[in-house]
C-alpha cells in the first residue's frame, strides 16, 4: 500500500494551496539554442591533416550516411597510407551515434556541440556536408563527442609474436620466429578495418584485406587463394617481406599496425603444401599456347614471371647457374629467418605447374644468349645483384676482406671456411645484419663466444636495417656502432688485424649526393681477423656477350628497360633486382609486370600477323 494520502479528501480550502505557486519561478527556456553538454553528439568536424581517407567511418556507419569524396590537391601517398579522400555526411541519414568517432583509426573525426541547422525545402543540398575542421556553418563550436581511450573501438595492440630466446638461438640456424597460433591469428586478423591501404602500398598489390578477412573467418584455404592471386613467393614473403603494407596500415597511425606479414605466414603454414599447389593451379588455362619462354635466374622475379606465364599455357624453362632455386632468398637470407624447406615449398608450387628449371646452367658459358634467342619466343633476364661492392679503402684488397653476399652464399652452400674469432662488418643494412648474425652463430658454434662488430655510416635515427634486426642482433651479443665510416684495413705483416673507422659528420652533400664527411680526430680501431663489406651489390652482365651488349641500350652501366622491363631488343625482357630494386616483394611485382608485358607482346604480334 502506498503512503500517498489519496484517500484523504482534505480541507475545502486545499485548492487555495495553488496560490503559493504564484511565488515560484516559472520554467523558461531561452530563445537561443542552449549550449550543449561537453560530450554532446552534434555535427561532425574532421581534421583534414589527420584524416587519411581510409573510409573506416563509412564501414561502421549504421545508416549508410557516409560517402567518400576524392579531393584533388590533398596529399596522396600509397606508400605512407594516405588517400586524398574525405568523408562527406548525409544528415538526412545520420543518427549521431558517434560510432564513426569511436572507430576512426586516426582520431581525426569528432562530433561538436553544434546542433542547429535550418533550411528550406529547396536547400536540401545543405544536408549533405563535407566536415572540415571549421564546422558545418564555419562557426566555432567546441568539440563534443571526441575520441577517448574508453570509447576507442580500435584495438591498438598487436598480438605478441613468440620467438626463440637469444641463448637458445645463437648457436644454430633454426627458425627463430614461432608464428601465430590459430587463435592469435584470428584475433590479429580481426583487428583489421579493411581499409585497403596495405593493398595500395604493396608493390605487387597483394589482396591483404581479403586474405586477412578469410583468416578471421577461419578459412585459411581462402586466404591462400587470395594470396596466390598476386604472390607465388608467399612463404618467403610471409617471413622476410619488407612489409610496406604495415607502414601504410591505418591502425598503425596510433598503435601497432596489423601484423600482415605474420598473418600471411600463418595462412601459408596452416594449409598443406599439397593443397597449396592445388589452389595455385586453379586458374591455370587448360590449353597449350605453343610459345616458348626462357628465363635466366631462378630468383623471385624470374620464377614469378615463370609462374604467370606457365599459367597462360606457355612452355617456360628457367636457367639457373647454381644448383638450387631461390636466388637471393636462398643465398642471401640466412636460414634462421627463412627455412629452406619453406622456400622449396614456394618453388615446388611453381614447378608443379609445369615450369622446368635447369640448374647448374650458366648462360654465357653453358648456353649462349644467341641460342636462347633462337630457340625461344621471349627471354627474360632476372639474374639479380650477385656481386658485392667494395669500399676500396686501403687494405680492402686483402684476402680476409670479404663481401657479405659471397660469404652468405658460402654459408648457405655449406662450404667450409675459416670462421674468424672476431670480425667487423662495414654497412648498416639488413644484409650487414644477416652476415653479422650468421657469422655470430658460427662463432658461437666453433668458439663458444661471439665476436662481431657492425660499423654503419648512418646514425640510429636513420638506420637502414629494421629495428627488430638491431634489437635481435644486440640480444645475440653483436656490437653495433652507428655513424662510423671506414678509413682503412689494418694489415700487419700480411695478416689482417683490424679496421680503422672515423666518426661521421654527414653522409650526403647539399645536392643530396652520396659524399660522406668524417671527423678525422674521432678515430677508432676495431681489432678483427676479418672485415666484411656490406655496402651494396651489383650485377655481372658478362652473360650477354660482346655482340649483344653492343646492341642493347644502357643507362650508366645499367641495362635500360621500359616501365614493363622490356629492353631495346623485342625478344628480351629484364626483371628483378638487376633493373628494379630492392627486395623480394618488388622482385615479385616486377616478375608479374614482365609476364604481363610478354603476354601483351604475344597478343600484339598475333594481331599484326
Amino acid at each position, binding site marked *: 500500500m502506498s503512503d500517498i494520502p489519496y484517500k484523504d479528501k482534505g480541507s475545502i480550502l486545499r485548492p487555495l494551496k495553488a496560490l503559493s505557486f504564484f511565488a515560484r519561478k516559472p520554467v523558461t527556456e531561452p530563445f537561443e539554442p542552449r549550449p550543449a553538454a561537453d560530450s554532446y553528439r552534434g555535427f561532425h568536424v574532421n581534421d583534414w591533416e589527420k584524416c587519411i581517407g581510409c*573510409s573506416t567511418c563509412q564501414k561502421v556507419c549504421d545508416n549508410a550516411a557516409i560517402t*567518400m*569524396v576524392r*579531393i584533388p590537391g590533398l596529399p596522396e601517398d600509397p606508400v605512407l597510407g594516405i588517400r586524398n579522400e574525405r568523408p562527406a555526411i548525409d544528415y538526412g541519414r545520420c543518427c549521431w551515434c558517434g560510432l564513426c568517432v569511436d572507430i576512426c583509426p586516426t582520431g581525426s573525426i569528432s562530433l561538436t556541440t553544434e546542433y542547429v541547422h535550418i533550411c528550406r525545402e529547396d536547400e536540401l543540398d545543405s*544536408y*549533405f*556536408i563535407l566536415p572540415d575542421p571549421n564546422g558545418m556553418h564555419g562557426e566555432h563550436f567546441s568539440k563534443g563527442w571526441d575520441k577517448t581511450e574508453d570509447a576507442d573501438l580500435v584495438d591498438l595492440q598487436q598480438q605478441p609474436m613468440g620467438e626463440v630466446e637469444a641463448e637458445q638461438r645463437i648457436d644454430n640456424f633454426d627458425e627463430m620466429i614461432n608464428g601465430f597460433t590459430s587463435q592469435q591469428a584470428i584475433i590479429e586478423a580481426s583487428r583489421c578495418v579493411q581499409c585497403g591501404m596495405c593493398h595500395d602500398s604493396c608493390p605487387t598489390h597483394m589482396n591483404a584485406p581479403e586474405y586477412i578477412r578469410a583468416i578471421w573467418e577461419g578459412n585459411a584455404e581462402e586466404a591462400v587463394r587470395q594470396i596466390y592471386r598476386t604472390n607465388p613467393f608467399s612463404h618467403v614473403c610471409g617471413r622476410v617481406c619488407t612489409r610496406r603494407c604495415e607502414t601504410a596500415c591505418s591502425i598503425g597511425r596510433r598503435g601497432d599496425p596489423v601484423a600482415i606479414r605474420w598473418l600471411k605466414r600463418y595462412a601459408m603454414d596452416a594449409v598443406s603444401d599439397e593443397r597449396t599447389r592445388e589452389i595455385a593451379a586453379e586458374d591455370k588455362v587448360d590449353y597449350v599456347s605453343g610459345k616458348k619462354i626462357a628465363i635466366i635466374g631462378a630468383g623471385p622475379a624470374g620464377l614469378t614471371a615463370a609462374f604467370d606465364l606457365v599459367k597462360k599455357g606457355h612452355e617456360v624453362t628457367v636457367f639457373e647457374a647454381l644448383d638450387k632455386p631461390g636466388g637471393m632468398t636462398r643465398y642471401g637470407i640466412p636460414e634462421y629467418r627463412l627455412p629452406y624447406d619453406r622456400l622449396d615449398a614456394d618453388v615446388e608450387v611453381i614447378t608443379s605447374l609445369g615450369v622446368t628449371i635447369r640448374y647448374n646452367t650458366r648462360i654465357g658459358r653453358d648456353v649462349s644468349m644467341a641460342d636462347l634467342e633462337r630457340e625461344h619466343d621471349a627471354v627474360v633476364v632476372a639474374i639479380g645483384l650477385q656481386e658485392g661492392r667494395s669500399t676500396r679503402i686501403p687494405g680492402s684488397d686483402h684476402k680476409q676482406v670479404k663481401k657479405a653476399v659471397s660469404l652468405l652464399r658460402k654459408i648457405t652452400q655449406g662450404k667450409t671456411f675459416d670462421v674468424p674469432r672476431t670480425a667487423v662488418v662495414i654497412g648498416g643494412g639488413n644484409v650487414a645484419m644477416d652476415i653479422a648474425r650468421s657469422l655470430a652463430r658460427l662463432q658461437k658454434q666453433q668458439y663458444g663466444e661471439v665476436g662481431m662488430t657492425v660499423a654503419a655510416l648512418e646514425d640510429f635515427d636513420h638506420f637502414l636495417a629494421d629495428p627488430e634486426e638491431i634489437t635481435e642482433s644486440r640480444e645475440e651479443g653483436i656490437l653495433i656502432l652507428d655513424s662510423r665510416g671506414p678509413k682503412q684495413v689494418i694489415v700487419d705483416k700480411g695478416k689482417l688485424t683490424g679496421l680503422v673507422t672515423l666518426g661521421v659528420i654527414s653522409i650526403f652533400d647539399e645536392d643530396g649526393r652520396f659524399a660522406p664527411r668524417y671527423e678525422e680526430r674521432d678515430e677508432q680501431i676495431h681489432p678483427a681477423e676479418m672485415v666484411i663489406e656490406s655496402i651494396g651489390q651489383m650485377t655481372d652482365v658478362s652473360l650477354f656477350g660482346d655482340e649483344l651488349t653492343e646492341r642493347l641500350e644502357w643507362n650508366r652501366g645499367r641495362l635500360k628497360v621500359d616501365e614493363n622491363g622490356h629492353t631495346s631488343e623485342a625478344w628480351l625482357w629484364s626483371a628483378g633486382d638487376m633493373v628494379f630494386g630492392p627486395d623480394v616483394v618488388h622482385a615479385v611485382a616486377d616478375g608479374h609486370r614482365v609476364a604481363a608485358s610478354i603476354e601483351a607482346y604475344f597478343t600484339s604480334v598475333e594481331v599484326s600477323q
Partner: protein
Amino acid sequence: MSKELNIWLDDLLNDIESVRFKRKSSRRVRVDVGSEALPALLELLQGRASYVHLSAITCVDWIDDDEFELVYHVWSYETRSLVSAHTRVPRDPGVYLSIYDLYQPAAFFERDIHEMFGLYFEGSPDMEKFILTEWNGPPPMRKDFDGEAFVNQNFHWEQYHPQWLKDIEEEGGGITTRPEDVR
C-alpha cells in the same frame, strides 16, 4: 523452495520422452521438443509446474533447413525461472497449433508471427492482419525477403549535389565510394 522445485522440474523434464533438456543457469532452462509434443509440454508446465506467464513466442526462420523454429518462453512466478521450449515446424505448409487455450497472450504473438513469417496457427482467435494492414508482399520477416532491396526499389534516395561538391568536381575530384557500395 524454489530450488527444490527446480530439481523436481529437472526430473520431470528428464522423464518425458522426445524432450531434450538443458539447464543453462539457475533461472534459464532450454527444452527442445517435437512439435507434436509441445502443447502437452506447455500444459504440463503451466498446470503442474506453475509456469503461468507466457513471456513471448519467438519465430526464427531457418530457411536452409526449410523450417520455422518456435520458441515459447514461459516464466514461473513461483520457481522464478524461465523455460524456453524450442520446437520446429516445416516452413511448408506453415501451419501449427495455437496455444491460446493455455496462454491468452499467445493471441498477439501468434498473430504477429502469422503476419511476419506467414506461419498459420490453427485455433488462434485472430489471424487477421494487424501491423501490415496495407502490405501485399510476402511475409517480410522471412529470410528470403530482402528488405533493403525492397527499399532501394521502391524509394528514392535524395540526390544531393551541393555547391562544394560541384567545386570539387570541377577540380577533377568527386564521389568515389557511395555508402551503398560498401554494404
